[in-house]
């Protein structure tokens, strides 16, 4: 199954998902597609003014351009998702999109989709971290079963 993650660039969440044979809808893959495109030259991510316009699908024109630019990349991943894992209160070292408003909007869209969602709080101890990995694995196994 295609699983959206939040933060969308969390390497740990993406790794746990792929270990269970699912596809993580990670932001890095989308950015990579843009960066290796030889046609555009707008460093660092090759995002042009077109992205905030594409982002209008997810947020209205009065929403700041940086939110719409981020949503142009993350929004299609949400659209594709069959399930999602959301980690709240994660430090930015764990992964982030940089903008709190984009975070709020992205999590809302994921929740609105009525797909299986696992919501977690960032672990603060070793025990909680082990518990978190077990919870994620159980969630992912459950998806497999549901999927048949």
């Amino acid at each position: 199954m295609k699983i959206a993650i939040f933060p969308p660039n969390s390497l740990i969440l993406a790794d746990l998902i792929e270990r269970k044979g699912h596809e993580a809808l990670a932001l890095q893959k989308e950015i990579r597609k843009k960066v290796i495109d030889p046609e555009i030259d707008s460093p660092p991510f090759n995002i042009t003014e077109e992205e905030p316009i594409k982002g209008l699908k997810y947020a209205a024109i009065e929403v700041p351009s940086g939110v719409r630019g981020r949503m142009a990349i993350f929004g299609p991943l949400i659209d594709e998702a069959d399930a999602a894992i959301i980690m709240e209160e994660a430090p930015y070292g764990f992964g982030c999109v940089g903008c709190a408003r984009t975070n709020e909007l992205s999590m809302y869209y994921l929740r609105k989709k009525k797909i299986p969602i696992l919501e977690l709080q960032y672990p603060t101890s070793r025990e909680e971290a082990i518990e978190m990995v077990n919870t994620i694995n159980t969630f992912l196994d459950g998806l497999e079963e549901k999927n048949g």
Partner: protein
Amino acid sequence: MVKIAQISCGTEYSGIQKEIEKAAATFGAEIVIPEADLDYIDEAYHKFGFNVASSSIRLMIARAMSIVEGKADADAVFIGTCFRCAEGALVRNEVRRFIQQNTNLPVVTYSFTERTKADELFIRMEALSTIVDRKSLLAREKQEGLTIGIDSGSTTTKVVLMENNRIIGTGWLPTTDVIKSAEDGLKSAFEGTGYKLDDIDGMGVTGYGRLTIGKHYNADLIQEELSVNSKGAVYLADRQKGEATVLDIGGMDNKVITVNDGIPDNFTMGGICAGASGRFLEITARRLGVDISELGGLALKGNYKNALLNSYCIVFGIQDLVTSLAAGGTKEDVASAACYSVAEQVYEQQLQEIDVREPIIQVGGTSLIEGLVEAVSSILGGIEVIVPDNSQHIGAVGGALLVSGLGKK
């Protein structure tokens, strides 16, 4: 090469990073991003004390802190956040103050959209790089010798002749042919002074036509209007230290510049419609059968509440005016309502985009309309508005003042 440190969030996601770099490169500057590792972000952000939710804004704060703490090398600072982002706007202004209070670096700020193009940033980047290159010149607070300043604006050309910190001649006329208008302005400024062009120690030019005029007269100083106008305004208003806002409600467009110790750090320019410009007041005066110079005094005697004039459009605005007069409104009330309407629109369209700092130094031809000045102050909650003598000549005064810093010929 001038190093401009970029402190921002969202530029890369708005697709405008390339435009920012292009704008800086046009003026011989390069954009550098101050380094900040994860631990430093936390440390700097807690030290700064502004609890923000966006991690990119925390990174902005850390980048500002690294400049203040000398960890990053920069000659100037560009601060940008997304237009309409409340968190971004709050931090943008606090970071700006933080850098200005703790360093001597020139700062400009901008709130961008995905439509931001390099040429919109040109005047800011040019101001930053000239402020760095001409720091000692901009520190000048007194005019010396015999110098002339020309401000070749889009609507009018202003010329000021100064001698030992005193204005001795002026010229003010509509810009038709850029060079011809400057020539006529010079003639008028020299008239009765006994001096001629060969006698002057220096010429400083600014405004839209500065490059053409600068080349024609081989001017000693050719500089963008942002720093020249700021300098001219604070000089004339005797507010060379501290913060202020320079407001110019023009014939065609409006400019608002915020300054710190006479150095500009943000500006906004525009005007959706002529209904928010001096042009509307000119037409109002004509319709009332008075000279534009009498309109302000008339407005002071009236009460804007007795006449409804609040259209964004000059055509509908005039319709309102005719209706008010037909309904028995007095000339005074209509004049007052016209001034209030322009001030209200400038507030709604532009002043809300910028952190207005007291005092406002109102300049340009429209600053001579007393009713408009009072309306601006009243709309901003009674803020202090200063209209210095010769307020219509700030650009030319700034040019004459600054060029005197280059010494005698």
